[in-house]
C-alpha cells in the first residue's frame, strides 16, 4: 500500500515544480496550439470517414440497419470489442451463408451499422479523454498553488513543522494522483486507434462480399 509519508519531499517538490512550470507554465508556441480537449500524442482524428476505410458501395441513403433484427444482432456482436476479431470473419461468413437473396444489401447494412456503432464508441472515448484532459489541467493548477504555498511556508524561519508536513503530504498525494492519471491517459489514447483498426478489419471482411 502506498504510504505518502515515506516519500522524500524533495523528489515531490521537483516533480511538482515540473508540473507547475513546465507542463502548464508559460504558454509556449506549441502549448498555445495544443488542443485543450486532446491530451494525447497521437494526431487527433475527430471522426473516421467511411471513405478512409471503405471503397465499396456508398453508405448514403440506406434503410435503417436496426430494422433488420438479424443485421442488428450481428452489428452488436461485431461492434463489441469483447468479440475477438478472429471470430468476426466467422460471424460474417455465417450471416452471409444464411442471408438469402438480399445478401449484398444486408451485408452493406451490417457494415453501415458497424461503422455507426464503432464511430459512436470512438466519440465516447474521445469525449472521455477531453474530460480527463480538463481534469488534469485543473489538477496541475492545484498542484502549482500547493507548491507555491509549501515553498512560501518553508522559507519562513518560524514555520510550523506540522503544517509544513501536512502541506508536503498533500502535495505528494496530489502529485501521485496526477502521475497515475497521466499513465492511464497514455493507455486510453491508444483506444481510438484500436477502434479504427477494428473498423478497418471488419470493412476488409465485408467489402469483398458486397462488391
Amino acid at each position, binding site marked *: 500500500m502506498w504510504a505518502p509519508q515515506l516519500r522524500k519531499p524533495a523528489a515531490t517538490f521537483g516533480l511538482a515544480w515540473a508540473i507547475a512550470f513546465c507542463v502548464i507554465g508559460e504558454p509556449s508556441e506549441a502549448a498555445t496550439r495544443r488542443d485543450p480537449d486532446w491530451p494525447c500524442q497521437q494526431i487527433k*482524428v475527430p471522426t473516421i*470517414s*467511411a*471513405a*478512409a*476505410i*471503405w*471503397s465499396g458501395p456508398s453508405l448514403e441513403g440506406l434503410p435503417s440497419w436496426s430494422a433488420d433484427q438479424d443485421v442488428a444482432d450481428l452489428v452488436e456482436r461485431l461492434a463489441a470489442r469483447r468479440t475477438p476479431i478472429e471470430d468476426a470473419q466467422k460471424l460474417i461468413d455465417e450471416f452471409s451463408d444464411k442471408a438469402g437473396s438480399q445478401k449484398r444489401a444486408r451485408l452493406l447494412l451490417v457494415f453501415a451499422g458497424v461503422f455507426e456503432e464503432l464511430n459512436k464508441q470512438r466519440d465516447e472515448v474521445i469525449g472521455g479523454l477531453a474530460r480527463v484532459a480538463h481534469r488534469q489541467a485543473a489538477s496541475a493548477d492545484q498542484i502549482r498553488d500547493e507548491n507555491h504555498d509549501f515553498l512560501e511556508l518553508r522559507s519562513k524561519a518560524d514555520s510550523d513543522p506540522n503544517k509544513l508536513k501536512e502541506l508536503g503530504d498533500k502535495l505528494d498525494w496530489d502529485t501521485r494522483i496526477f502521475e497515475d492519471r497521466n499513465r492511464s491517459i497514455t493507455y486510453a489514447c491508444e483506444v481510438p*486507434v484500436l477502434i*479504427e*483498426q477494428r473498423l*478497418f*478489419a471488419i470493412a*476488409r471482411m465485408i467489402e469483398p462480399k458486397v462488391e
Partner: protein
Amino acid sequence: MQAQLIRRGRIRRWPPLLLSLALTLGATSSAFAYTAYVTNERDNTVSVVDLDKMQTVKTIQVGQRPRGIVISPDGKFLYICAGDDDIVQIVDTKSQQVVGDLPSGPDPELLALNKTGDLLYLSNENDALVTIIDVKERKALAQIPVGVEPEGMGVSPDGKIVVNTSETTNMAHFIDTDKRDVVANVLVDARPRYAEWKSDGSEVWVSAEVGGTVSVIDPVKHVVTKKITFSVPGLRSEAIQPVGIRFTKDGKLAFVALGPANRVAVVNAQTHEVEKYLLVGQRVWQLAFTPDQKYLISTNGVSNDISVIDVADLKVIKSVQVGSFPWGVAISPE
C-alpha cells in the same frame, strides 16, 4: 534434349519428363521466392515475410525505432536505421541476425544505397545533416549540412546526384556525390518526405506530406515542372498525405503512398495524371516492388500489415500481418 547435371564429380542424365517438371517447379519458385523485410517502428523488430507463402515467417529483434531499410544489391545484408539508438544496423539475411553497425550519426531515419552498394547516404533528422558512409570500411566519409529535419534520400541512376528532402525547410537539396556538396535547392510543398528518381534520370519526384502534393522536378534545370495533386471522394484533403513513391522500370507508372488516406495512388508517370486509388491498409508509409515488378508491397502503419498489390491488374490481392507500426520495406533481389 536431355540435360546433364554435374554432381559430386559425376554426370547424371535427367529424363525429359523430370527435367520439364523440375524446370516448371523451379520457374514457379524463383518467380515467387522473394522475401520482404519490414521494419516495425513500435516493437523494434524486422518482420521477414515469405512472399511465396504470403506470411510472416520470422521476426528479427533490432534496435530502437527502426524505420529506413535497404538491402545490399547481392541481398546479403540489410541496413536499418535504428533512429533512437543513433545507429544503422547491419543484418545478415542468411543468419537473420544483427552482425554489426555503421556510424550513422544521430537519429538516422531514411537511407539510400548507390547501385554498387558500397556507399550509403542517410539523413540525420535532428542534426540537419546528410551522412555518407563507406559500407565496406564501416566509416563515415562526410557529413553535409542540409535543411532542417532532413528525411527523403534518392540516388540518381548514374549515382552522381543524391536528392535529400528537408521536412521543415521544405526543400529538395541536390547533392553532388563527388563534390559532396549541395549544388541546388528546389522549394517544394510543406513537409517533403520522399524523393524518387525515374530510372532514366529524367525526373525526380518529391512527395510533400502536409502539402498533399508530389512535385515533379527537372533535375538538370532544378525547377518544378508539375505538381501532382490527389483527391479521394469523401476524404478531407488533409487526410491525403503523400509519402513513399515508386516507379515501374519502364517509367510508365508511378505509385504514391497516401498516408492516412489508406490508399496508394496509381499515377501515369508520363502524363502525370492520377489513374486510380487502391485501398490498402491504414496509414500507408512506404512501398517496394518485387524485383520482377509483379508485386508492389505497401507498409501500413496502423493496421499493422503489409498489402500486396498485383501490378498488372492494379488490385490489392493480399494483406499480411507483420509487427507493430510497420514503416519501411526492402525486398530480396532473388
